[in-house]
């Protein structure tokens, strides 16, 4: 079966999740969709599987146009999908799960269990899936549950199998098993669409790789393409950012992280023995493809995740087990990655959000009483200082644009006394104007002697801001570099390449040229329109 998508466009309000995506999947091929979180991979597959209707574009099967109003239509057309989160009934057996919704009845109307079991056993044998039809799903390990999902699709005669981030929940050994099964399916003539953001896996399993970024196809490459090339395609280099910035004058070490380990689900370690120092008056940029432990690192630094080992010290004070409040009071300013979820209370007014972590301290409170007049005055000052475009200080913060929400967070975090600024993806989803504003403020902080840690998956941002670059891959830092490093070298490190260059993990020399000038990147993509700002 030949599958083709033609200029699929899907919008969610002002956000364009899929922007004219075209893709064709040949029979008996493993076609990988590579892209960061939020690049539009899952949306595209939901469109293909009939869970969402595209706003524009069409789906062609063997050259004929197909319309999927629901997954039922997609299944009838021979498309199967294994979701990232399995859709299985834990208390049912494998056979029962497989036949759920397509139960076969015998002549007297009872469930034909024998036939189902036979079918499952047959398929299982043919593709080397090795699943027991009578096992209860809740007793099966995750890797086997995934195979049950695959059997489910195969029983429904799927010719195209979509695997959405299939390795996210698997151990390395289970991943190897999955790859074996995928190859066997491919050799049997089934097409597989393999969604992932993991370069290595995609390279080892795919016949064709399509890279998505911000809802667009940015390139199609054979699996022989280098990891560096794929990485730089994924993170992109859309806008050329220039920040006027004097050479850094690093001082004493302010934030020191040593051997930090954060435990994850099922024995994984999203942050695995990470060490770095940030000095006063310098910006350390942590680069890397998203999902390599950056989120967990920031949350552990703020005391939002428990740590399994290592220390976090601020000016010599051990904060490893301190509460978030203690860290804030000790002088940590934090701009979280997810601003609507972690940074703001959307239903609160701008002025309330501006005191969200200072509400119980003078001058905003005396005893238990809130000083409304002081809070209002603070709001007016901050709004003016940070140029927050809001109808009034009483406007709910959730109704502001993304850029203005971020300004509110910056105004709050930079408003209280702080020695270190941790900013995670500080300009994600912002328009160019807001990006400039945020970058200027961050550099200003550095010049005032604040130790700044920037975590960003945007290479341009790292180049524009960082005085030193650390690259993170699978919970570890694969190398420290100066901002003059070529993008290809960073790409290699982001793909897990070994650190061969001399370490630059001491403070960079004072004579380093400004990052923007040294940056080797040139705009190959189109400049980002302001309309792309988050809703």
């Amino acid at each position, binding site marked *: 079966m030949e599958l083709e998508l033609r200029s699929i466009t899907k919008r969610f309000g002002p956000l364009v999740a899929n922007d004219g995506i075209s893709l064709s999947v040949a029979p008996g091929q493993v076609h990988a969709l590579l892209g960061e979180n939020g690049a539009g991979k899952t949306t595209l597959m939901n469109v293909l599987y009939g869970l969402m209707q595209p706003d524009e574009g069409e789906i062609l099967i063997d050259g004929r146009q197909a319309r999927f109003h629901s997954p039922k239509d997609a299944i009838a057309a021979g498309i199967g999908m294994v979701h990232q989160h399995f859709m299985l009934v834990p208390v049912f057996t494998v056979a029962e799960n497989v036949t759920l919704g397509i139960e076969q009845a015998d002549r007297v109307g009872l469930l034909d269990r024998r036939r189902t079991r036979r079918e499952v056993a047959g398929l299982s044998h043919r593709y080397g899936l090795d699943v027991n039809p009578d096992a209860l799903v809740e007793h099966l390990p995750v890797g086997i549950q995934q195979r049950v999902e695959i059997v489910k699709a195969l029983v429904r005669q799927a010719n195209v199998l979509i695997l959405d981030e299939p390795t996210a929940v698997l151990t390395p050994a289970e991943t190897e098993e999955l790859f074996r099964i995928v190859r066997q399916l491919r050799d049997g003539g089934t097409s597989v669409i393999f969604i992932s953001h993991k370069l290595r896996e995609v390279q080892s399993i795919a016949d064709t790789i399509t890279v998505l970024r911000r809802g667009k196809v940015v390139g199609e490459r054979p699996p022989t393409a280098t990891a560096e090339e794929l990485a730089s395609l994924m993170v992109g280099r859309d806008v050329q950012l220039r920040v006027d910035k004097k050479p850094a004058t690093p001082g004493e070490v302010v934030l020191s992280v040593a051997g930090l380990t954060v435990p994850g689900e099922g024995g994984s370690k999203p942050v695995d023995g990470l060490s770095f120092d940030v000095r006063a008056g310098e910006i350390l940029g942590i680069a890397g493809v998203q999902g390599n432990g950056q989120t967990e690192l920031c949350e552990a630094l703020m005391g939002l995740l428990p740590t399994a080992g290592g220390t976090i010290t601020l000016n010599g004070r051990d904060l490893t087990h301190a509460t*978030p409040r203690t860290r*804030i009071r000790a002088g940590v300013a934090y701009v979280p990655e997810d601003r609507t979820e972690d940074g703001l209370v*959307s239903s*609160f007014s701008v002025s309330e959000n501006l005191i*969200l*972590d200072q509400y*119980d301290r003078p001058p905003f409170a005396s005893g*238990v*009483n809130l000083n409304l007049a002081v809070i209002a005055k603070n709001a007016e000052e901050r709004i003016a200082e940070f140029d927050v475009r809001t109808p009034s200080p009483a406007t709910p913060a959730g109704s502001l644009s993304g850029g203005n929400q971020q300004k509110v967070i910056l105004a709050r975090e930079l408003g209280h006394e702080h020695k270190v600024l941790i900013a995670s993806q500080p300009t994600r989803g912002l328009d160019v104007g807001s990006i400039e504003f945020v970058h200027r403020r961050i550099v200003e902080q550095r010049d005032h002697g604040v130790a700044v840690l920037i975590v960003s998956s945007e290479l341009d941002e790292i180049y524009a801001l960082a005085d030193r670059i650390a690259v993170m891959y699978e919970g570890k830092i694969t190398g420290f570099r100066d901002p003059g490093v070529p993008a290809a070298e960073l790409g290699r490190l982001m793909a897990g390449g070994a650190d061969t260059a001399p370490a630059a993990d001491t403070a960079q020399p004072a004579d380093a040229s400004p990052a923007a000038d040294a940056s080797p990147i040139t705009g190959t993509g189109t400049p980002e329109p302001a309309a792309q700002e988050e809703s």
Partner: protein
Amino acid sequence: MSTPPASPPTAAEEDAKQSQRRTFGIILRESVLEGNTVTVTVLALALAMVAGGLLAAFTNTAVLHAPAGSVPGKAWDVASATYVALFEGSVFNPHTVAALFQQASISTAIHDGYLSAVFQPLSETAVGATPLILTGLAVALPYQAGMFNIGGQSQFIGGAIMAAWLGYDVSMPFFVHVVVCVLGAFAGGAVLGWVAGDLKARTGAHEVITTIMLNYVMLYFLAYLLSSHSLLQAPGSPNPITPLIASNAHLPLIAGSNLRINAGFLIAIACAIAAWWLLNRTTTGFEFRSVGANPSAARVAGIKVERSWVLVMLIAGGLAGLAGSSVIQGTDFTLNPQSYGTYGIDAITVALLGRGKPGGVVWAGLLFGALHAGSPGMQNAASTPVQIVQVLQALIVLFVIAPPLVRAIFRLRAVRAEGAGKSISGGWSA
């Protein structure tokens, strides 16, 4: 719109004035049509009244057996008589005023209780509203912190046990005794609220489940206490009932000996004001509201989310305990298995109607108190069964919590941003 230039009245300026007038009219119409929360609530009340009237009329035998032609007239008579009786029983009865002025002099009228009779409906409304306001606050306050307190009943019982026990078993001078009983009731309810809050904070047990289960625990604990003479059962009584509390422990009457309105009503109003102050003017309230609106942002900002859960449930339990005190010390003076009535469930209704805000809870409590106060008269005057009042209550809340339904009926536009439904929808996600 732009201001017209300052020049002699020109055609253009006339137009501008015209459009200004039009704009005002449009604004007024839009403010009604937009279907904001107040409009929706008022319309929901109206709809429920209409539905209730129809129900009263068409369950009435006089209407059902009337000849076909006279059905609409008879139905109207029954429905209007029902609502008139409801109003006279809960707010104001013109006959009592007439009786007042037929007396020889005002002083004898007051002495003979004619003046009290004028205010009796309002007094009954206030008495009925008191426990509803207090238990309503016990739901509304946790609601602001993102929790759903279904345990009004158990907390009420906890407070009532303390009020009754301290009321009859201890001897103290007047006022001191009242205060001791009231504080005891607060503590009795607070303990139960704290248990639910602490369970959630420590183990993540959902407060909806734990509070519902605590309701059963307290229900049977009370039955046990009332079943033994060595515990709370009145000596010599075969019935599950406590002894009468000492008169020193009665909540003082505040409008003369003929009216039942007592200090409990003042306590309820004071609690509502305190709850408003707590939520909107204090750091603790700021924590509650942040935790309720976005717990993860609150946590990132250094707020101790678990501490807020425990504290808000403790206060809420105490408020429900005070409702127990208002019943035991204000009207019943003894505790029996009927004392807790349906306050636990009514509290949720009151809090929903009041949109989880202290001020709203007071209005909702007064409305439901009025419906309770007026229902006996309704049964006498129009032979409408008192259960109609419960149906009416249910209908009001049904319409209020389903704003899209009301908007659809009246063809209103949906409100921007935070709709009327928001106050309800969030509660269960915590």
